């Protein structure tokens, strides 16, 4: 469906930071995405997960390497709060989100009642988004994102927020999409979600692939690396504390 071949992405940051002012976000990343599979991407914050999704969604282009996509395949990045305007109502924001994702005006109007029902916003749907709590925003964001229909769904932690009740509903809705004939790339910090939903997992670390394979094995390797890092940090902290006392 889609293949990344030796993809790297750099950008110029402030001088004196990173590698002489060049931030290597992704470094020689290669993997394939097969039709109908759900591929998970895990890793700590800032390792390049969102950048990988953006490259797959054709929002960014790699500095080096190639992206090969099956002819005619469409991809869409699902992420919360697709550019909500605080002074517009939930209804108007939902309308705008739908149109931005390719729906015609008539289709978008047709989706609106469905979005209002699923998001459980009630009368708040007609109120400006600036009056919403973060939970309400995430409910609106998730529901509008759910309306997209593309060949490749790229999900960036949309199931990570919201209250417990809505989270369960959202997971179920996403599961129905994922378990169908949908090709999905799923980024999440939740081990249980990744294990339940993904066929294969990639662990990204500092812009490169540290491991890939079956979810249980890769997640175990990832967790072990976090434990090792945490122990190393604790030791370093203890050494610094000892030096200060001395």
């Amino acid at each position: 469906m889609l293949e990344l071949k030796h993809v790297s992405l750099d950008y110029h940051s402030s001088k004196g930071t990173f590698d002489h002012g060049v931030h290597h976000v992704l470094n020689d990343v290669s993997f394939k995405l097969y039709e109908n599979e759900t591929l998970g991407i895990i890793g700590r914050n800032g390792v390049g997960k969102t950048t990988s999704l953006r490259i797959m969604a054709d929002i960014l282009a790699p500095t080096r390497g190639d992206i090969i996509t099956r002819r005619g395949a469409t991809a869409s990045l699902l992420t919360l709060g697709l550019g909500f305007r605080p002074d517009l109502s939930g209804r108007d924001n939902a309308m705008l989100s739908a149109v931005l994702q390719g729906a015609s005006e008539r289709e978008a109007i047709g989706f609106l009642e469905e979005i209002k029902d699923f998001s459980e916003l009630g009368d708040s749907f007609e109120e400006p988004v600036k009056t919403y709590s973060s939970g309400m925003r995430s409910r609106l964001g998730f529901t509008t994102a759910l309306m997209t229909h593309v060949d490749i769904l790229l999900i960036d932690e949309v199931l990570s927020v919201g209250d417990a009740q809505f989270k369960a509903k959202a997971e179920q809705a996403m599961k129905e999409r994922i378990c169908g004939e949908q090709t999905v790339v799923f980024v999440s910090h939740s081990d249980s979600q990744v294990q339940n939903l993904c066929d294969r997992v990639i662990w990204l670390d500092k812009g490169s692939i540290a491991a890939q394979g079956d979810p249980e094995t890769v997640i175990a390797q990832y967790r072990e690396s976090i434990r090792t890092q945490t122990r190393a940090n604790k030791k370093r902290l203890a050494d610094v504390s000892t030096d200060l006392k001395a």
Partner: protein
Amino acid sequence: MTVSQYFRLINIHARMLLKVDANTFKLGFLWWFLEPLMWVGVFYVVFNLILDSRKGGDFMVFLTCGKFAFIWFSKTVIQASGSIVASKGLVGKINIPKSVWPMSAIQESLYRQSSVYLLLFVILAFFGIYPDITWLWLVPVLFVMYLMIVAVGLAGAYLVCVVRDFQKFITLGMTFLLFTSGIFWDVRDVGSEEKTQFLLAINPLAFMLDAHRQILMHDTAPAALHLLLIGVGASILIGLMLLLMRRYNHYLALKVIT
């Protein structure tokens, strides 16, 4: 994205921007009229009361015609220039042509400006100036103004994406144009005909503002060839900017996100 989807998106986005504009302020859409009316009030206070220039109604109309048209150009270009960087969140989440952002801002401004021009006609009527057959020349003049705004707006949006400092340059540039485009002084009253033609030739905006006054105040058609040249030049710049934005679509996204 098809051409019809592109224009549909711009139109809907522009209508939403109008709603945001109306919802943000207590007086809402009334500001579309209040802001230009306040300028007219300021002109009256400064030129008739403080300076006591006794220039009369003609000078008020002179100022109003130039200023209302200038506001359309300057405000729209500034808004369009900052539109891509202002939409950082969306740019990083969805792949649509980057020209959608400035074009939506320009379209929103066009809707607002149509009410400003209606106000202008009301003000002209108040000063005893009524429509004439030559006013039909306003159609090509406004169309060429629109092309100029699109051309400069797209160029500004591209430049600001690449180097943010251009936002400052553009704002300063608009201030420079405010004083040099013959809004507060008559470009035809600078001492010599050669100087007038030179000023009109090097500053297309001065020509456009003068064209407004020629049509509305003097029932005279503007120089058609000059108008056509500006229109063609603007169209070429629009084509170039659209090509550049398409070619460097990912680069612009990277510059905005990082």
